[in-house]
Structures are given as structure tokens and as C-alpha cells.
């Protein structure tokens, strides 16, 4: 019998206190892939970071955020909330609450990045 090579599969839950600021902008981290584990979607998703080599178990809310973010163009929390509201028809406040815990956890997992956006004078907004 052989020893198995340990693999990092992290569970990202929605229990942490959010600390991402509403003014922050985010991008999807380079090389991140998100996949549903069931053919019909469901609430079990996985994300793989090519940079860290780590795999994360994520819920559908986190999957939606990563999926909607672009690697190049930063987006605000408000804009992501607006897009989900537009696509699902869910109430704005409900979506904001659903997403609230996810940002910090996704940052910790290396799946998204916070970006400092500078205005045309070079100063942070």
C-alpha cells in the first residue's frame, strides 16, 4: 500500500465577519477556475487557484462573486450586487446580505484581489 499525497482542499464557509469596504474594488485572481460539482448547479462548488495550487470548496454565493469578477477590470461590491439583483430579481438588501460574508473569505483564499483604483490625478479615490 502506498501513502497518499496530501492535497489542500479548503472549505470556505460564510461564518467570518466581513471587513471588506464598500468602496473597495475587486478582481478575480489570475488563473482561478470555478466549477459546480453537480450537473444541475446546486450549492456545492469548487474553485482552483493556479497561483497557490489550492482548491477551495465554496458555496453558490462565493461562486457567483468569483464568476462575475473579471481578472482585468476591477468591480465594486455595489456593481456586483446590482448585477446579481438584475439577473435573479432578488431584493437588493437580501443580495447585499447574502454576499456580505463572502468578500473577506475569498480574499483570504486568494480567489479574488482587492485593487486600489487611482483617479486621473494619481490619487486614491
Amino acid at each position: 500500500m502506498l501513502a497518499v499525497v496530501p492535497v489542500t482542499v479548503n472549505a470556505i464557509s460564510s461564518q467570518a465577519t466581513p471587513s471588506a469596504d464598500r468602496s473597495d474594488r475587486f478582481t478575480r485572481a489570475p488563473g482561478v477556475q470555478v466549477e459546480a460539482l453537480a450537473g444541475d448547479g446546486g450549492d456545492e462548488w469548487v474553485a482552483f487557484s493556479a497561483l497557490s495550487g489550492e482548491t477551495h470548496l465554496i458555496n453558490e454565493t462565493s461562486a457567483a462573486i468569483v464568476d462575475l469578477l473579471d481578472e482585468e477590470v476591477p468591480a465594486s461590491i455595489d456593481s456586483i450586487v446590482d448585477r446579481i439583483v438584475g439577473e435573479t430579481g432578488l431584493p437588493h438588501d437580501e443580495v447585499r446580505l447574502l454576499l456580505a460574508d463572502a468578500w473577506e473569505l475569498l480574499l483570504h483564499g486568494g480567489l479574488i484581489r482587492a485593487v486600489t483604483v487611482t483617479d486621473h490625478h494619481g490619487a486614491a479615490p
Partner: protein
Amino acid sequence: MTTDQRPRPAVEPVPGDVRSAMSGGGVWLDLGLLTVRVRSTVPELAAPLCSVYPGMVEIAPRDWADLHVELAEGAGPRRWLRRQSRFTCDGERPFEPFPADHALPLFEWGTNWVLARRMNDVLLLHAGVLERDGLALVMPALPGSGKSTLTAALSLRGWRLLSDEFGAFDPQTNQFRAVLKPVALKNRSIEVIRAFEPTAVLGPEFAKTRKGTVAHLAPSAAAVALRGVPASPGAVVFPRWQSGSATQWLPARPKVVFTTLAFNAFNYAAMGASGFQAVVRLTRRCPAWQLIYSDLDDALHTLERAWPEVRERALSESAP
């Protein structure tokens, strides 16, 4: 990796010829996914090798081997007193010497060790894999789970053995390929399988190895003949032998399937995104269950009863 399509020699080489060939240019073992060239100066290897690799030992040289392994006798006085065998692959010696009469277990563990570290163009699950209806039954498990016993029993009831140790999933073709080696049975499993099927062809028993007593079940003639034929993903079953337990057949959630497959893969981390996508595809494609059992016959009946569902699902997914 190549699979030589040349017809096998009609006459099985005898151990004497194999011993002689191994002390020279070597013999070739075509396992399906890969070919191993074996050289040995340990005379105790030839006879058990022939008995547990029936129809697979070739003396005629091949153009290519994926692995070149060697078993050599001990040096100095250990060539004569308490003789030893030493396993080497490309100058690497992963194990301490074994007694010379334990050359087969050393060969088996040595080649498994090398295989687990080299075969990075396929996702290599630590799993028993058998085929029926062109579909692979994949049984990933930790040591002590009863995987080998169940794999051996199924292989003796008409399921085609692809491997007891390596579930080799090719991400290019989305199929499982055979890594055909004998099933390593340990301790009580040996008697369980002898009682289960008295005609089973087992090699010699090796007592007092680091895993207790081991014996190897030879693959069937059909498994040998079809070792170049892959199998599509069919079902994933996580077996767990539990003393005195009634048979339990429990659906496994996708996240359990994903994490267990990834954890049981020798090279998940090494394969990066390709390994991730391969495990995702297997998780989506295969219905999965946990099988807790203590009665081998009942476990087999449970699997047999579930198999039509697996076949139907595969058919519906392949329909245009």
C-alpha cells in the same frame, strides 16, 4: 507511454528462462498503461513473478519501457548469509533491502512506489478499478478499508480488473486505463478470498513482511487480454469494511466525492488545473455511494443490484 500491440508469444516462458533473461537484458511486463522492464540477479523472483503475472512476462526485447527496475542481490556476505534483494530504479533505492525470498513483495512495492511518482500525465487515484459494460467502477479508499478484498472478489465474479492500486484516469480521453498488476491481499483477506473462490490463483504467501502476511491474486486471462482496452467512468464507491456491520449503501454528496477523490490521488497537486478539472468531471459524471460491509457476498450483491442504474445513467448521458 505506449502499448505494444504485437501478439503475445503463444508459449508462456518458463521460470528458468525468465530467470536467465532477467539476469541479462531483462523481461518486459506490459501493464496496459505502461511497460516495465525488469532485471534481476535474485533467482527467487522468477517463479512467483510468472505465477502472478500470467501471460504478461515477455522475454523478447521491446523497443521501449516506461520504467526500468532492477532487483539485485545483497553485497558482501549478504550474498551468502541471510541473502537479500535490493530494489533500484534509475539509481534510486527507495526501500531497505528485503530478504531474498521476499523478492516479489519488494518488486511489487518498489514498482508501485515508482509508478505513483512518475505517472503524471494521468490522474492517478489510489483506487481499485474494475470494468463492466465498458464502464469503470472506481473504489478509492484508505488502507484497511477492505478495498483489495472487494476488488479481488469482484474480479473473481466476472468484473474485469483494471487495477487494485491505481485508478489511472486519462484527462485527454476521459477514460480509465488499466495498470494491471496482481491484487495484493494481506493477512485475513488471503483466507477470505481462498474461501470465497477456491479456484483463485494466488501466488506464494510471504510472512512477516512490514504489512504482515501478503499473497498476490493473479489477474484473469480476460483481464490480461483486454489490458489495452480503457473504460469510461461509471460509478464511484467508497468501500469500508466494518466488523459485524450490516451492509449499508449510502449516496455520497458531490463535495464528499470531490474531496475524497482529490485526497486519494497521488498526483492531484502535481497535475494542477488539469487534475482539478479531471476530478470535477469525475464528480459530475459518476453516481457515488459509500459501501459499508462485513459480508463479502452481500456487498457484491448490493453492487450488482445498483449497477443497472449506473449503466442506465451512462447510456442516457451518452445519448445524443
